[in-house]
């Protein structure tokens, strides 16, 4: 209940904002910040809880976008169906990647996930139906009342998705799954010896993480009215998800949310005032700073301050 009441309130506030006469650009920018929240939360399930640093966020995100595109182009599917399909397909990819990378640890796992990104991108580049390297122009359907514009509706949808992702992450964290993942993060061998089903847990984390990332990617083609491989599978998505989680703190589900909001908002402000180039610099610098100086992220800093206050 301590979680659900604020969560529902958050979604209601989001819907209220979407219906209010706030400047359109706010929703355009806020949508991206919310996307980061979902991506960071999803990343943390595997990266933070289980300790498997995943660099392939862009692969799942991009595949989610392309799954939605295919469904839209082929069946004219509504957004809900696109999101569900994207989650399913990317969950499967997550499962597959988990199986393949069973025995890999540390940097090998990370590099293998980067490999998945480029292979996915190459597959899309060679598929003419989705436009190949050229990309596709998409005419999105008329907006659903009561929202004034499609972007506002997407903002509300993404807000709901963010809350949903946080709820799932919280559930994983407090349940026996979370305990198992923490055990395997601390020492995989010891966990196995203690009888923790490490393989099943890893596969579960990979699948759930992948599915959420895919769901986050699904509304992007509608958001931009355009899709092309280079930006869909851009490594920057991976870095942002990872950085947001590490900046916020990887132990608790709230960490990625905080990190994503800080990082995302900062980037959007920079985009409007300076240029979108400097965004990547912001991510890189903040990531290095936190990884070096504050490894437990913002949550860790808050904990230290509270301890000192007491």
């Amino acid at each position: 209940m301590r979680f659900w009441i604020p969560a529902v309130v958050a979604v209601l506030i989001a819907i209220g904002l979407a219906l209010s006469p706030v400047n359109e650009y706010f929703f355009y920018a806020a949508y991206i910040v919310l996307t980061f929240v979902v991506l960071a939360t999803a990343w943390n399930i595997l990266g933070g809880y289980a300790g498997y640093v995943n660099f392939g966020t862009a692969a799942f995100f991009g595949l989610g976008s392309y799954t939605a595109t295919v469904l839209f182009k082929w069946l004219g599917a509504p957004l809900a169906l696109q999101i569900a399909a994207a989650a399913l397909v990317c969950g499967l990819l997550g499962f597959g990647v988990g199986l393949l990378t069973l025995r890999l640890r540390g940097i090998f796992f990370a590099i293998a996930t980067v490999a998945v990104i480029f292979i996915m991108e190459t597959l899309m580049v060679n598929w003419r139906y989705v436009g190949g390297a050229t990309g596709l122009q998409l005419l999105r359907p008329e907006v659903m009342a009561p929202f004034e514009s499609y972007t506002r509706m997407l903002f509300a949808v993404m807000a709901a998705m963010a809350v949903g992702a946080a709820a799932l992450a919280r559930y994983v964290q407090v349940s026996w799954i979370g305990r198992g993942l923490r055990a395997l993060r601390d020492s995989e061998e010891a966990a196995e010896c203690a009888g923790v089903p490490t393989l099943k847990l890893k596969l579960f984390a990979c699948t759930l993480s992948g599915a959420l990332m895919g769901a986050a990617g699904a509304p992007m083609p509608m958001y931009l009215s355009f899709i092309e491989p280079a930006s869909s599978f851009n490594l920057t998505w991976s870095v942002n998800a990872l950085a947001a989680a590490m900046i916020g703190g990887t132990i608790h589900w709230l960490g990625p949310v905080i990190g994503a909001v800080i990082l995302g908002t900062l980037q959007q402000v920079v985009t409007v005032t300076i240029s979108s180039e400097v965004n990547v610099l912001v991510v890189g610098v903040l990531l290095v700073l936190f990884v070096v100086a504050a490894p437990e992220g913002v949550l860790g800093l808050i904990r230290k301050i509270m301890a000192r206050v007491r």
Partner: protein
Amino acid sequence: MVFSFDLLLEALMFGVLLGSFYAAVSIGLSVSFGLLDVPHVAHPAVMVLGSYCTYLLAGYGWDPLVAGTVLMAPFFVLGMAIYRFYYETFERRGTEAGVRGLAFFFGVAFIIEVGLILAFGVDQRTVSAPYIGSSLRLGDYRIPHRMIVAFGVALVLTFTLTIYLSKTFTGRAIKAVAQDEAALRLMGANPVRIKQWAFGIATAASALAGAMLIIVGPVEPAIDRLYIGRTFAIVVLAGLGSMTGTLAAGLILGIAESIVLMFFGASWAPAVAFGILLLVLGVRPQGLFGR
């Protein structure tokens, strides 16, 4: 697609040249990651930094190869500094820090990339030299001189490093620290200083690799992303720590890419490196000549 043995032969020749270039580019990583276990995903980014430094010097009239060789000295120092920082911040504090070390290097790679964009813009940069643009005629075949130059440099670099690692005192100490750090400490050598020295060498090799990169073709700041796959594929395929293995793996990758390019189209070529990487990781993670 017109299939002929002529084309196949040309693809093979080009693949050998390309492959040795890839090997030269990866040799720095073979030392830093293969021997020292540093998760150096910023290696291609440092190489691209080397390319841009070469570009700057070439703007003053320097020959790019000369520029690359001269850059090896400052890059050596840079490498030592990076390793020192990495060691103090991460390696010292245990295995948990390994994950953060990886994130650190990714952050560094992006900072370098964006720094280059802010400094130079996203435009492609090239250098000119008498051996760029001309080619060698062997009957019906024409081999670009720039590829031959890259091939030559690659051979020299690999050969030099192999000799250094096996014949000199520091070289063998580097190999030793890779095999058994504790034993080395017991023998009185300081493993941290040796690793620092080795990382410096690896970074110096990256500088020369960067010069070769801009000789072989135009560079732009984001080109490091493409080379993450290629360099790691080669180092993993070679087997960690093997210099001659790196050359062999490079050749394999170069030939594979060249053949795919020729017969399947240019749009599949980028996936070759990553495909090989996944294959090796799945089937034989210790690589061809691994320890």
